């Protein structure tokens, strides 16, 4: 019984964690290649789900074609235009003006979404109709399985692209040392643009996967953005792999903490404490611990600065 519950919590934690990972990877990629800390990441995800819904209604098309269409729109707006209009002019003044600008951008997107699509949460179609599969005592929804599968395929494809293609490696090189990349003739500006396009793609994918569960709502971007940021810090800001694992970790730890803190049996006593109100603090404690003791992230590497 106990083990079965543990596995169940793990599986559903992985399903949410996979989506968090998608959110965090794009966040970390932007930071690596361009030094952009994008606090509008959550709003990008939120509004992408509205764009998908809007296209479905407007063109009377299914979820999948609407997703691909939304992906191109998102790449144009949150990839190309975001970089050209906001990031390029501001980045030369350092990180902080850009951080503040992205926070402002997030607010604008949030309020515009509310004005255009209203404040009510809207249901969002799932890629597959949720059927509950039972393995032994384990109950897993097909929707969760598809979510995990799609997230893993996207992340694996991204890793392959980054490691196995010349363009991907040029992006990695740009992320690791921009000056040297430029000296070698890598078109650094284009590589950075590619990262923004990839981030826009990841953001739309995350919207596709997360919204059936969390619903399309103008205010949900704040939570998404916070999670992406936390996952990236916990896992390691300077590595795609770190952000990835950070995302999964938050999904899983959240679940385990909620379950196991609900009834904490004090050893050698009959006292059982209900600590469920404090479960939220566990990922935050992890975050603080990482910042204090391993600021490069659990799976990150120390920044090496050449002199």
């Amino acid at each position, binding site marked *: *019984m106990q083990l079965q519950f543990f596995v169940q919590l793990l599986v559903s*934690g992985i399903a*949410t964690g996979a989506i968090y990972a998608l959110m965090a990877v794009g966040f970390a990629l932007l930071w690596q290649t361009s030094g952009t800390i994008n606090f509008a990441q959550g709003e990008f995800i939120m509004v992408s789900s509205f764009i998908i819904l809007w296209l479905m209604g407007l063109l009377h098309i299914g979820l999948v074609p609407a997703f691909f269409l939304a992906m191109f729109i998102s790449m144009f707006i949150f990839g190309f235009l975001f970089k050209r209009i906001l990031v390029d002019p501001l980045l030369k003044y350092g990180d902080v003006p850009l951080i503040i600008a992205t926070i402002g951008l997030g607010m604008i997107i949030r309020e515009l979404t509310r004005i255009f699509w209203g404040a*009510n949460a809207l249901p969002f179609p799932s890629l597959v109709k949720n059927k509950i599969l039972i393995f032994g005592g384990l109950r897993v929804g097909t929707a969760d399985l598809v979510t995990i599968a799609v997230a893993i395929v996207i992340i694996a494809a991204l890793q392959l692209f980054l490691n196995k293609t010349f363009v991907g490696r040029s992006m990695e090189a740009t992320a690791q040392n921009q000056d040297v990349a430029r000296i070698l003739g890598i078109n650094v500006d284009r590589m950075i643009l590619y990262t923004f396009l990839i981030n826009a793609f990841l953001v739309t994918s995350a919207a596709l996967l997360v919204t059936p569960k*969390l619903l399309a709502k103008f*205010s949900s971007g704040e939570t998404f953005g916070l999670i992406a940021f936390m996952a990236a810090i916990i896992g390691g800001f300077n590595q795609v792999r770190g952000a990835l694992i950070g995302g999964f970790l938050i999904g899983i730890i959240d679940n385990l903490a909620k*379950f196991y803190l*609900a009834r904490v049996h004090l050893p050698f006593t009959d006292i059982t404490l209900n600590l469920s109100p404090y479960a939220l603090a566990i990922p935050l404690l992890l975050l603080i611990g990482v910042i204090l003791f391993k600021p490069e992230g659990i799976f990150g590497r120390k920044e090496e600065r050449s002199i």
Partner: protein
Amino acid sequence: MKRLLISIVLLFSLSQAQDSVLFIVPAEISGGGATVGNNWADGVKLAAEHINAAGGILGAQVVTEVLDTQTDPPTSKAVIAKGLEKNPFAVIGPVYSGSTIVNMVEAERAKTPQWVGSEAASITQQGNQFIFRTSSGQNGSIPKVTKFMKDEGINSVVIIYVNNEFGQGGRAAAVENFGNLGIDVKLELSTEQQQADFTPEVLQAIMVGADAIFAYVNEEESARLLIALQQQGVTIPVFGEAVLLSQVVLDLAGDAANGVAGHVNLTAEAPVPAVQEFRAAFEAKYGYTPDHNAMKGYIAMFVAKEMAERVGSFDKLAVAEQLHCSLITTEDEPGVLMDIAYDENGDIDRDTFLISIQDGKQVVTGVLPRLKNTCADQ
């Protein structure tokens, strides 16, 4: 220049003249509570339209000014304080208890009656003579749910509540009433707003093996909880209150909501002709089904209208005094939709409904008549 000054003075004197009466409407237009806040504000605006079409209040046209609290208590306090500078006749809103508790002192200080959609028990227990509810608070409605559960043969329960003012108030009232009825509370689980995955709570509920789950979380989280329960194949019955049974939750949770039962103060499904007329008018204007908050906002405006007419002026102090221990029937004022009685604290007594969800729709399974236990009936 002179002409400009004169026209400004003229404008001022026009707006000061009593051919219009101002209501400020603080509501959760943005932020986490936007679903309820917009329902509330739309209900208020519809009422204003209906009142104005019928000649206004004491001959004055109703003007509403919606103020966005952003679902943030300090903001709600600030916008109300600012709105009160215009000397409105009444404050209509907000809905979230966390905001009301913080901002109700502003209206009290300005000696302006305030009607709120909030249900936290503590709001009417502080001796504020200007605060009025539009539905019974948790202390009025939760005993009805728990009693209903007892009647259904429930002997043990798991409480799942949201960790905010609303959820904690509901949890406290539920624990007390379950205790009085001899229902064993096996576990209380705290959840967060915007929580994505309710699997841990559902598994805990399975593990402790209670007869029923009592769910007291916000709208979207209610839907997620019901979906998680369905996914884990939980068959134990789920009971709740207005939020759990609201139209929003039904829309979002789909067939996972079937079988959920409980008690609501107000529902657009109520088999009451006035409610059905309201619903039709609301749907025609806004294109969506009103929830209980829209009805509360609508009713608040008509209570204010009726009281101004009873007093015969827009004397705010007199209106607040008069409303305590008053009964307003639908014959007095059809806009209140159902007879409503106020007690000495601003709490109300009204017919309420037992509801269960069948095929994705609210079905009224019983009407609990007005208790007639307030000073209005003595």
